[in-house]
Each structure stands twice: as C-alpha cells, then as structure tokens.
C-alpha cells in the first residue's frame, strides 16, 4: 500500500523506535521517517549518537575480564575433573 503522504514522527516515537533503528529492524518507511526526523532534530541526533557510542563502549572496553587467579583455578578444577573422568 503506497501512500503519497509520508510518515511523520515526533521525538517520542523516535525514542520508541530507537532500538529498532540501531538493530537495523523496521520497515523502509519507518527508517525513512526516522531519518527525516533526525535531519531536523538535534536532540534526537544526540540520542542516537550517544546510544550508538554507549553500545560501542560496552564492547570495546571489554568489561568483566576473567581475573588471572580465577582462570588458574578454573583450569586446575577442570584438569582434576578430566583426570577423574
């Protein structure tokens, strides 16, 4: 169904569609409407930018490393279990 009027979104709707947008989900029509909104709304651009950066930081900082001592105890326990069969 093709309509001549294009979908117009307010900030609240962009916020609700944010995860959709970040995950590459949603229809082409929705994505185009989000892009149109972002082109004219600085606050929503900041929201998208900072959420994208949040997810990048989450991956890049590699949180919750296994402490060396924890790793060593894991290997010791597994070795013992494997030996016992």
């Amino acid at each position: 169904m093709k309509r001549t009027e294009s979908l117009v979104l307010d900030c609240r709707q962009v916020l609700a569609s944010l995860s959709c947008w970040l995950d590459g989900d949603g229809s082409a029509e929705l994505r185009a409407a989000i892009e149109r909104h972002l082109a004219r709304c600085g606050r929503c651009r900041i929201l998208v930018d900072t959420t994208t950066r949040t997810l990048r930081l989450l991956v890049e900082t590699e949180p919750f490393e296994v402490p060396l001592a924890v790793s060593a105890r894991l290997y010791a326990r597994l070795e013992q279990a494997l030996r016992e069969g």
Partner: protein
Amino acid sequence: MPAGSEAAAADAHDLELVARTLAGDRAAFEALVRRHERRVYRVAMALLGRPEDAEEALQECFLQAYRHLGQFRGEARFSTWLVRIAVNAALQRRRERDGAVSLDELLEAGDFVPERLSPWHPSPEQLYGRQELRRLVETAVAALPEPYRAVLVLRDLEGLSAEDTAAALGLTVPAVKSRLHRARLVLREYLAAHLERPAGLHQRLLRAAAGLRDRVARRVLATMGRKP
C-alpha cells in the same frame, strides 16, 4: 563482510575442537575453554553480580559442557550452546543463594525518558584512561536491574540474536526487545553523566553575553529613571 567470515571461521574452529575433544583430545577441550572463558564469565557476572558467585558458575558451566559435549549437535553455534549452559549454571547458583527467584522481579512499568541530551566528549579515552573507562562501563552495567542486565549482556555484548537470548533466558522475543531497549537507555543515561562534554567556551560566552546584556539594560533603565 570480514566480521561475518571471521565469526564463521571461529565457529568452524569450535566444531573442530569439539570433535577432537570427543575423540579424547584433552588439549582440544582446554583450547575451547580458553576461547570461551571470558564469554562465560561475563554472562555469569551479568546474572550474579558477585565475582565469587561468577567463578562458581564459570567452573560449573565448563564441567557441564564437558559432560554433555556429546549432546552438542552443531545446529546452534557452539558459543550459543555454551551461553545457554552458562545461564543455567548461573541461575542454579542464584537459586542456591537467594532461593526461588524469577527473572521478572524488579521490572518497572512505564517508559524510560532520557534526560541527559548534551553531546558527549569526542574522545572518552582521553578523558579517562582505558582501565578507568572499563571500570566505568562495568559499574554502569552492574547498576542495571538484573532482568535488563542479562538481556543487554547476551544481546549487545555477546552478540546473541533476540531469538537465542529469549531461549536462553526463558523469555519471549518481544520481552527481550523491550528490556533491551530500556537497558540501552538506562546504560546511556549512566554513561552520559560521565561523558557529557563540559560546558564549552560557546556556552560560557553565551552566558557572559546574557549577563552583559542584563547589565546594559539595567543601566539604560537607570539612566532613563534619572532623566525622565
């Protein structure tokens, strides 16, 4: 896509190591553990919060994985299969610790509305050192209510699909999506408090200009008052 082909190569290597382990090669199992211990530990930390509990779940997960390796059929990725075992080991540990708990506890109703909407510092690595930035992220993740934390770690850190995350946590796909959405916003808000650009020169100039304008206006008004 280099990232995709890298992942495919890693999956193929996992399958080979599984086959060798099943054929009695212990070194192959050790290699599997090395490749995946970080992933399992992160999942355990996400669900349990305390390092000592996460360690317990980490050991239990790999013991279980070794015992049940013959049941791994290679339909799912090995990493996804292992994450499911890790989630179960962590939930088991939590039941021992806290008694019966449900993933639905602590869920708040209503929408989360972002408040901090100023631009961020262009380079947080310059603002904080790498270690400090990691601790900041760890604290932010740990501060999330648990049902959000588990979904965020599986989806955005471990890269599981919404479907696999739902299966691992016993949730529906829409529940995964709505919790993930909220988790991302709450995490963003926490980091924003530390990463927003301090009031820049531009804003300080604007404030100074406003002050000057007020002083000029007062003087003009005062002058007019003296000479009607």
